[in-house]
Every structure is written in structure tokens, then in C-alpha cells.
């Protein structure tokens, strides 16, 4: 019996890519033959780890195909045509309406991806969802097969690498640094992060800086609007980094006094765990997958009020005792996503499916 993993794009260093590679390693350790197949493979991925879809062998009915659903792709349509038992890993697809004003391409991809969720309803023999939120989406789409919640595997050891010293040197001072890490995308509501920063800088502490760390490729219109917003608010000290190297991302986490997330749609939200890993206290709008990933940790906003968010940040910066408590809670929460725990869960669930 073989176990293969299939996905549209195997990117280097992104959440789904890391999850796929970690699952590949775990399956190998379980003693099964396995391989990753993708339509597009990032050139930085280790040679031989993955092959193009065209090279995928014909599967037997007893083989297992693990399919990662995260976007609109022709693979969503083709999946029913492949032999083998199907395990669909649902990483969530952003609802298309967020992109309506900004990107025709992103809108269509998301629309197609959401349609894919329904298409695979009767194709999947078993599902994994990154979060309970994702599981609920599958249930709402009418999935009848067994669905287990298996959090995404995060390579926490990578975060122990050396950060970029140039970035650290440039901004290491007495400013209060706000950080949000994630693609510049309309569902992530970076405009609300900017507004919170505006309130904080104007009414509480002028010596503050905001770093929006993430690529804006494919979201140029939204990026342009964010820049216009910053200009109209006459805000200084806001930096949108664009796509940067991994060691530079590490530097921004090191510089952060607070991690602020105002996203309105996340299936899981890996940067929250990254912030926890870097001992950065979190203030977040508790909505969709964010609420669940944070659990009891961080300071949560249940209603979106940027003034409240600014005041929460002020308290975290000024009140050392509160800050330490929040970080301590985050550390406990982070333990629940440890590699060992997720690995055990993957092995147990996979054994159950193999039978």
C-alpha cells in the first residue's frame, strides 16, 4: 500500500507546504512508501522530495491519497477520477467576497476553491480539518464522512535560527513596535490594524511603530488602498515590508512589543502561534479560526473596536504583571500545538484510517 500526498502548489516555508512536508516525514517514519505530488513545486524545495502531478503513478484501490484543499484548482475537479481512498485535509478557503473589489484572479480562485469544498463532499472518504472552525465548514457543506481536527504541523525549531541583524539594529530603540505577520489581503483587515495604530499613536504613545509583514503580490489594489489610507491619516512609522526573507521575519517578531491581529477570516492563523513562540503578547479580534487557535491565551476583542484594541495594547506595554501573565498563558497554549502532540495525533488518525 502506498500513501501519496497531492496538492496544487508546494511552496517553500508556507503553512500548507510545511504541513505537507511534516506529514511526509511522519508517514516515512511509520514505514510506508510515500511521495508528494504537486502541480507547481517551489524551486527551493529539496530535490526529490516532490514530483510533478504528471509523474503520479496509477493508484490501486487500496492506496491512500491525502489531498490538501486550500484553493481553487483543477485538481478539485480531477480528484474523483483517481483510484485510492481519499483523505481530504481542509486548510480552509477564504470566501471570495473579500476580494470582490480588489482582484479578479483571487476572487475567482477563492470562488472556485469554495465550490471545490462542495465538489469533494462525496469524494472524500475521511477528512482532517486544521481547526474545529474548518470542520464546521465541512459539516455545513454536507460532508458525511468522518472528520477529525488535526492542527497544522509547525516547524518551531526553524524559529530558533538567527534573525537578520540589520533589521534588528535599525529598529532596536524605545519605540513600541506593533507587528502583524501575514499576506496583505482584504480578509486579514490590515486597515483595522492601521486604525488601531492610529489611535495608539495619536492618543496614547507617539513613539510607536507598525510593521505589516507580508507579501502583497496579487493584492496590489488592496495594498494601494492601504497606502492611501496611511497617507490620509497622516501616519508616520508604518512599514509594509512586502515579501521578505525568513530571517528578516524572525527579526520583526524579535522586535515586536505586541502582535495585533484584526483578521476577519482565518482557518487556523499560524502567525498567532509564531508570536507565542517569540514570547510576544497577542491582541486579536476573536473571530473565525483566530478565536479557536488562541483558546484561553492572549487578549481578545469580541467586538471590533480599534480604540479598545489600542487601550489593550497600552495596558500590555505599561502593565508588566499583565504582560507576563498573558505570555505565561500563551506558553501553555503553545505546548498544545507541539510537534510531538500533533505527530501522535497524525499517526493515530492515519492508523485508524488505514485499518
Amino acid at each position: 500500500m502506498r500513501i501519496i500526498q497531492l496538492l496544487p502548489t508546494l511552496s517553500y516555508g508556507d503553512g500548507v507546504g510545511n504541513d505537507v512536508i511534516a506529514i511526509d516525514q511522519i508517514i516515512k517514519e511509520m514505514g510506508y512508501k510515500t511521495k508528494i505530488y504537486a502541480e507547481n513545486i517551489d524551486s527551493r524545495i529539496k530535490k526529490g522530495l516532490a514530483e510533478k502531478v504528471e509523474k503520479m503513478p496509477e493508484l490501486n484501490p487500496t492506496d491512500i491519497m491525502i489531498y490538501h484543499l486550500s484553493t481553487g484548482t483543477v485538481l478539485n475537479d480531477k480528484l474523483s477520477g483517481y483510484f485510492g481512498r481519499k483523505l481530504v485535509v481542509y486548510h480552509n478557503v477564504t470566501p471570495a467576497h473579500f476580494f470582490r473589489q480588489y482582484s479578479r484572479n483571487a476572487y475567482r480562485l477563492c470562488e472556485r476553491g469554495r465550490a471545490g469544498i462542495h465538489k469533494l463532499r462525496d469524494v472524500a472518504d475521511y477528512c482532517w480539518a486544521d481547526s474545529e472552525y474548518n470542520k464546521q465548514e465541512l459539516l455545513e457543506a454536507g460532508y458525511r464522512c468522518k472528520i477529525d481536527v488535526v492542527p497544522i504541523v509547525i516547524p518551531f525549531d526553524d524559529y530558533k535560527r538567527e534573525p537578520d541583524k540589520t533589521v534588528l539594529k535599525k529598529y532596536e530603540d524605545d519605540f513600541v513596535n506593533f507587528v502583524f505577520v501575514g499576506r496583505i489581503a482584504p480578509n486579514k483587515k490590515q486597515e483595522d490594524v492601521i486604525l488601531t495604530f492610529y489611535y495608539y499613536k495619536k492618543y496614547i504613545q507617539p513613539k510607536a511603530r507598525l510593521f505589516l509583514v507580508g507579501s502583497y503580490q496579487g493584492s496590489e489594489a488592496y495594498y494601494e488602498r492601504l497606502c492611501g489610507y496611511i497617507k490620509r491619516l497622516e501616519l508616520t512609522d508604518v512599514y509594509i515590508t512586502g515579501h521578505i526573507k525568513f530571517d528578516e521575519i524572525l527579526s520583526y517578531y524579535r522586535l515586536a512589543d505586541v502582535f495585533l491581529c484584526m483578521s476577519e477570516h482565518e482557518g487556523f492563523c499560524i502567525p498567532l502561534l509564531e508570536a507565542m513562540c517569540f514570547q510576544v503578547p497577542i491582541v486579536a479580534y476573536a473571530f473565525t479560526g483566530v478565536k479557536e487557535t488562541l483558546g484561553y491565551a492572549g487578549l481578545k476583542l469580541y467586538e471590533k473596536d480599534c480604540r479598545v484594541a489600542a487601550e489593550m495594547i497600552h495596558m500590555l506595554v505599561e502593565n508588566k504583571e499583565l504582560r507576563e501573565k498573558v505570555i505565561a498563558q500563551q506558553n501553555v497554549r503553545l505546548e498544545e500545538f507541539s510537534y510531538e502532540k500533533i505527530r501522535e495525533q497524525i499517526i493515530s488518525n492515519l492508523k485508524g484510517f488505514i485499518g
Partner: protein
Amino acid sequence: MSENINIEEIMKEIRQNIKDRGYDKVPVSFEEIEMKNSVLKIGTGYNSDEFINELEFLDGNCTTSFHVPIAGGNPISVFIKKVIRKMTRFIVAPLVDFQNAYNVSNLKCMNQVSEYISEMEKYKIKIEQLEKELKELKEKC
């Protein structure tokens, strides 16, 4: 796990702080920000003037040349630039050719779309006329 942090107490303090600081209304909302240079926005309706302007721009700029004239007073600098141009020709020229072919194809497509829209405009006028006639006939009956 949250018993260590008194959220009620925090919220009380936050509400008081908001009151004390007298937060003003934000000078501008995000929705008011225009996306002037956006070519990606959708759902804003068909604008014939914008379409024609863009088509005219495409028509006049759809091909480019690899051979960019090198100007400059310093003969050494001009010579070096010419050498670089010559050395990179084998990479850049095919890319420029490919881009030109793509642009021409794109322009042809857009011209077809333009023709189609013109036809639709004629039908639109015809439908309006027919609807008018139908209404008149209904009134007579």
C-alpha cells in the same frame, strides 16, 4: 487558564481610559480611499470611456524594441553600456520577442471584445426600439 487575568477589571479600565482621552472621530474611513491606479477591481460596472482609453493605449504601445539607444557624453561609459547590451542580448531579446507576441495577441483579443461590445450596443438600441413599439402596441390594444 484565564482565571489569573481579570478581564472585567481590564475592560473597566479600558472603558474609563477611552472616556478620559476623548477619542475623536477618525478623519477618514478606509472605504473613502480611492484606488486610482487599480486595474484589478471588479464589480464597478462597464465604463466605455475607460475601455476605449485603455484600448488606445494598448494599440499604441503593444510592442517594444530590445535595441534601446544609448546616449551619454562619456565615450567609455557608452562603450561599456554597449558591451553590456550586446552581452545580455541572448537573454533579453527572446524575452522581448515573447512579450511582444503576447501583447499583440492580447490586443487582438481586446479588439475582438471591443467589436463584440459595439455589436451589443446596436442590439441594445434595437431592443429599446422594439420595447417601445411593443408598449405602444399594447396601449393601442
